[in-house]
């Protein structure tokens, strides 16, 4: 039976807290057809730049387009891998170094589908979602983040 899915909000104001991740994991204890979970977390790094050290990244997005695109990516990944669950959360606003800004969570009966889907989701989120990070430096300068 196909479940009809609709776009979900993936955005969280501020950092993603460890307690939220724990709650999300615990919520899956009743899904006893799951054998493996794969999680990716993006954390803000204190990169050294010529103009100063990164102390935070401020994220903005084109929300309507990002949610439509995230929905399209979700549908593609659900069609490609036999997943039980998939969750995507991305922070908006100012996220300090050491804090979590991205939480991708996939679950499946056998581990490989969850792992491959998680990797592919992270790649597609970084390449295809209209989200921008402005690095805030300890010199008070700012510069726009470039994904490599």
């Amino acid at each position, binding site marked *: 039976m196909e479940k009809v899915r609709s776009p979900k909000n993936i955005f969280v104001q501020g950092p993603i807290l460890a307690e939220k991740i724990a709650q999300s994991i615990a919520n899956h204890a009743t899904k006893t057809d799951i054998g493996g979970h794969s999680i990716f977390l993006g954390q803000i790094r204190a990169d050294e730049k010529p103009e100063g050290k990164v102390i935070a990244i401020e994220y*903005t997005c*084109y929300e309507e*387009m990002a949610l439509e695109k995230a929905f399209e990516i979700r549908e593609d990944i659900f069609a490609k891998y036999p997943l039980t669950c998939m969750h995507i959360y*991305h922070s908006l606003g100012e996220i300090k170094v050491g804090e979590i800004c991205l939480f991708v969570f996939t679950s499946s009966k056998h581990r490989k589908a969850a792992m491959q889907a998680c990797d592919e989701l992270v790649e597609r*989120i970084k390449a295809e979602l*209209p989200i921008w990070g402005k690095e805030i430096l300890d010199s008070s300068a700012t510069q726009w983040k470039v994904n490599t």
Partner: protein
Amino acid sequence: MPDRIRLKAFGMLAEKIGADSLEIENPGSSETLRRLLLEQFPALQPLTFRMAVDRKLIQAETDISAGQEIALLPPFSGG
């Protein structure tokens, strides 16, 4: 109905333009719009950007109709 379009700018482009939203006369196509923007905002000239029409990224020159939402998108850097 006047032939106008809504323009949204994000990230570095919004900074350079000095606004994150504009309403302008419809230039008729994405390439005409790009030329007009580079004339009006020379600070955009060194920058790479793509456009979305009604929240879909466009890959080639695209006609623009009145009432459409056009977005100017610098390279994405989420995650």
